């Protein structure tokens, strides 16, 4: 009995151990690293190494491809300059944790701070404090309500994404001669302001053209939620002419649902501009025909501009001697025709 038991234990133990070893070997994700979106040093006075600038950087812990790309881009762009030192702090899981991380950053006396806040409103006070202490703050994407809280704000255009998507969809429908089209929308997390802005831009533009959204099923920026939202949409609308899906990451799930439901009668526009979406658009073998950008390349630009601010230089193509205060990126429409140009900006 005892020997039987120990043999059994040995067997189970051995099996468990080997399973563990096997599994541990399976966590690798080695692949060719995705190219970060940097702007290589070109010609021009601004690219000449200047005064040494220490840039403090903080962005939320990435739970999504876009945020991960923001951090990667910032680091890569800083690495491209010989006169920039990047001090990066993890922003933790919420605004309070980010505030704590930022206070340690301030004690390291950076020349400029580049910050993607968890929540612009909640970190407004930090922006004011840092600016008062003489450290210029570059707000990345999530605006501070108080104009004194930042030196530069660089962000994407959520409303413009909706406008771009609606414009493309309307053009295509018109070219196809569809009257009374059925348009579906799959937004991301509906409670977020950015989602509401995107949807408003979409609805406003469609309304100005006499069109409307037939049904919208929000997902959660994840592929599995995108799959479920799309499945719901397909049940509600037996025939669809066009879909705008706000986010290319959740779009992986939406495309899976398209295949599973075998629905090919419509075309789809994505959002954000992931590398996979651009490849799909270029290959032109799915319903995804276009995507409207909200590019994380803004992090690279933010680092470049922070460097110029630290060195007291302006943007060389502009007349002004200093960097402007606000920059809003245009949401660009990527189609089969220009996908290859944008591929290097995909994330």
């Amino acid at each position, binding site marked *: 009995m005892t020997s039987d038991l120990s043999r059994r234990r040995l067997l189970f133990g051995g099996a468990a151990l080997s399973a563990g070893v096997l*599994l541990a070997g*399976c966590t690798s*994700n080695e692949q060719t690293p995705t190219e970060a979106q940097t702007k290589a040093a070109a010609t021009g006075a601004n690219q000449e190494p200047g005064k040494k600038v220490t840039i403090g950087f903080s962005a939320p812990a990435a739970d999504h491809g876009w945020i991960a790309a923001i951090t990667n881009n910032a680091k890569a762009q800083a690495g491209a300059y010989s006169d920039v030192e990047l001090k990066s702090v993890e922003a933790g899981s919420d605004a309070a944790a980010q505030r704590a991380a930022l206070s340690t950053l301030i004690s390291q006396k950076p020349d400029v701070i580049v910050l993607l806040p968890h929540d612009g409103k909640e970190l407004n006070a930090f922006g004011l404090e840092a600016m008062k202490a003489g450290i210029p703050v570059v707000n990345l994407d999530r605006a501070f309500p108080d104009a004194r809280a930042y030196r530069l704000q660089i962000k994407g255009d959520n409303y413009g994404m909706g406008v771009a998507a609606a414009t493309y969809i309307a053009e295509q429908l018109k070219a196809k001669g569809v009257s009374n089209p059925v348009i579906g929308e799959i937004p991301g997390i509906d409670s977020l302001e950015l989602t509401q802005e995107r949807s408003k831009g979409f609805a406003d533009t469609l309304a100005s053209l006499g069109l409307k959204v037939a049904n919208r099923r*929000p997902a959660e920026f994840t592929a*599995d*939620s995108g799959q479920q939202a799309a499945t*719901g949409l397909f049940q509600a609308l037996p025939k669809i002419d066009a879909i705008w899906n706000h986010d290319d990451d959740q779009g992986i799930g939406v495309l899976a649902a398209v295949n599973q439901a075998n629905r090919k009668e419509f075309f789809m526009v994505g959002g954000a501009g992931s590398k996979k979406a651009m490849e799909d658009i270029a290959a032109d073998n799915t319903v995804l025909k276009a995507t409207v950008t909200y590019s994380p390349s803004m992090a690279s630009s933010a680092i470049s501009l922070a460097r110029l601010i630290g060195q007291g230089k302006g943007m060389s193509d502009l007349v002004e001697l200093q960097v402007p205060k606000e920059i809003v990126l245009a949401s660009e429409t990527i189609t089969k025709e220009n996908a290859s140009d944008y591929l290097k900006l995909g994330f």
Partner: protein
Amino acid sequence: MSDTTPTAAPERAASLPAQSPPVDPAETAKADRSAGLSWWRGDGGEGAKRNLGLLATLVVLVVIGILTRPDLYGDASWVWGNTLTILKLASVVGVVTVGMTFVIIGGGIDLSVGAIVALAGVWCTTLATQSYGAGGMIFSALTVGVAVGLVNGLLVSYGRLVPFIATLAMMVAARGLAAEISDKQTQVSNDTFINGIASTNVLGIPLLVYILAAVVLAGWVLLNRTTFGRRTVAVGGNPEAARLAGINVRRHTVLLYALSGLCCGIAAIMLTAQATSAQAAMANLYELDAIAAAIIGGTLLSGGRGTIIGSLLGVIIFSTITNLFAINGLSTEAQNMVKGGIIVAAVLVQQVQFRSLTQFLARNRATTT
């Protein structure tokens, strides 16, 4: 399972018709109560009534659907397709809920199921795992699920952590590990076999629905027709009495959490197939969906009672509501409010029934003794 120590109630066991050799007292008690019950009643006298109530709720939901979208419901092929879609939507949460039902009946709770699904999903879609093909992916998802479940069980039973705390910690930790492994990226599955699980139909019915049916059937048999199931009820109903009756309560608890982990591993494969990808944030809040479904299905949160069929009906009710709101183009906020209302109503009904049951038992005891 040849480890059952001699029980304290051999004479009662002897009076029963011969069943499986190791006889727990819990089993005899159970057999007394469930004599002559219909097949779908898992446990307790009021289970059938409750399941009928759930079916009635489903019928009401379908009627609302017919009244609000007569154009869609007029098309028979759409109705059939929609029914399959509802079942497909229910399949992943349904599999998770079967494991959850066991854990709750056994007196515990597993808040980490969503995180386990995410971790197993991420683990089975790393490039390294994918290089081993579908077999390697399935193996790793199931093993990760069971392993995490085992850790939960060991923490609860031998570490003496409260299940709520142990699995809450695991919820955070497993998602953290998933984010670490995936580097916070969406990992696309390129395996046609795995992806095919979600797009294959057998005899016109999606494979996912068969998987759900198989897991539910296995869970039902395990709960109602095996010693393991009866011990689960005994451990959840009164762990001290179960221990005195010779059940190894700690080991049984470990097995319950491992079972829940196994269900999560299966669900991870299904969800990965559906989304053709996995990421650390997937299966968000599935723990709430699974617990809610088990509760409205009649599983007692304090343990000791519950049915697999009830849980299944609970999951189907939720996915029918989701479907109802989708086909009417209503907002998900309103949908969440309705879901919350249904959970509260179910628990209120449960409390009233439980109170009347205890009163009934008390009266019975007073008259018989």
